[in-house]
């Protein structure tokens, strides 16, 4: 664990690695994950790929601390079990649903979450986030009036408002037009350059070409294969899942 002076949050907890070790999760008698293991370090972008029901969202839920694994562990850094609230202060999560209050304006949504995460200089941070999302001119409009793409961009900035070390993205390309998707890809590369750890679950395989440092292929809750730096993600997907 090392303190991070660039963090937006007031928490001093930080980590360089995330290690998922033999994680399983059962819902009643149905097993959604079977002994999944992988590791990630600063600057890694990990793709979690697989058909519907493969266990991608369950895996992200466990790494995000929202779900408890039935067995196995997730280690954030190397110093042993950490306080869950401290871990959460370094996590940014963009879910399949967008975690936004439709009645609040874009600025109010970002301000609320920045304050919850104890960010310093909230107003300036929110202005920067609005500019990055291309929503500076709509900052005081309620989110309910935004298109899906605009809400997706706002939700991404909400997830990143506190400069998290670990960024978990569930279908981040949903609803984005070509320009917004390109902007998101550029943002993900910037996060990698900045030493963030990104784990993303996506069905937009072509967009992930050349982006991933590691692709995890899941089916029926099992990790079929881990492929390092796949250049053609769709081809790798067909190859692994077609066996």
């Amino acid at each position, binding site marked *: 664990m090392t303190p991070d002076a660039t963090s937006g949050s007031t928490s001093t907890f930080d980590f360089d690695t995330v290690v998922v070790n033999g994680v399983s999760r059962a819902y009643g008698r149905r097993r959604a994950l079977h002994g999944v293991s992988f590791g990630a370090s600063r600057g890694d972008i990990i793709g979690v790929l697989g058909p519907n029901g493969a266990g991608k969202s369950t895996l992200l839920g466990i790494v995000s601390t929202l779900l408890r694994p039935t067995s196995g562990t997730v280690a954030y850094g190397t110093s042993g079990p950490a306080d869950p*609230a401290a871990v959460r202060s370094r996590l940014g999560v963009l879910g399949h649903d967008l975690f936004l*209050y439709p009645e609040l304006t874009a600025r109010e949504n970002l301000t609320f979450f920045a304050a919850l*995460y104890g960010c310093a200089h909230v107003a300036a941070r929110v202005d920067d986030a609005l500019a990055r999302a291309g929503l500076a001119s709509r900052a005081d409009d309620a989110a309910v009036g935004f298109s899906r793409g605009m809400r997706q961009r706002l939700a991404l900035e909400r997830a990143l408002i506190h400069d998290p070390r670990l960024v978990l993205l569930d279908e981040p390309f949903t609803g984005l037009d070509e320009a917004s998707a390109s902007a998101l890809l550029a943002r993900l590369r910037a996060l990698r350059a900045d030493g963030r750890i990104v784990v993303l679950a996506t069905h937009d395989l072509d967009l992930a070409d050349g982006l991933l440092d590691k692709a995890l292929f899941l089916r029926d809750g099992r990790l079929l294969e881990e492929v390092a730096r796949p250049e053609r993600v769709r081809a790798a997907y067909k190859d692994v899942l077609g066996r």
Partner: protein
Amino acid sequence: MSTQGFGATVLRIVRKDLTVEVRSREVAYTTLFFAVSCLLVFAFALVREGRAPEGAGEGILWATLTFAGTLALGRTFERERQSETLRALLLAPVPRAAVYVGKLVGIVGLLLAVEVVLVPLVTLFFGAPLLKRPLWLAGILVTGTIGFAAVGTLFAAMLVRARSRDVLLPVLLYPVVVPVLIAGVRGTSALVDPVFDVAIARFWLALLFAFDAVFVTLALWTFEPVMSD
């Protein structure tokens, strides 16, 4: 150790809920409309030639509050479910008990506002002199509302992802809050008796205080584990 303070988190959640409610007015209007409709139904059914059965007003007040409160609890958490914002709150590095208290304060505030409208209407429709001892009445209503909402907020949050949450909430909630309803009705009855017995009123108020203390403590203790999965 959580990175954000308890009180500051509660205030932020209350302020956010208030802003959302001021913009949408959804929960306040539906709860108030439902409560007044309930009262009217009871009035049409029970009031004959301008006279209501003796002691009906107190029972109807608490029954109406229970039904309207259940609606408010369901709608409040439905709002947090629609964009999964409850998950966003649970992901924040704040004490989860503060999230519970923030939601509880909002629901108590809403129900107290509804009571401000309901009490004069019950007095009018059922001829119950509820405002004879306003401070005592306020004490019983506030403690009763906190007790009802303390259990209801916990259950509504637990059920937020259950498919039949609208059915399950009253099924789980009503048996647990029976002591609140009994103490509320009997305490309110004591206030409108022609001969006011302070000891009886104090007994029911104390019972409500005890219920609040036990269930708020239990909810603060259990909210974190029950919301972790």
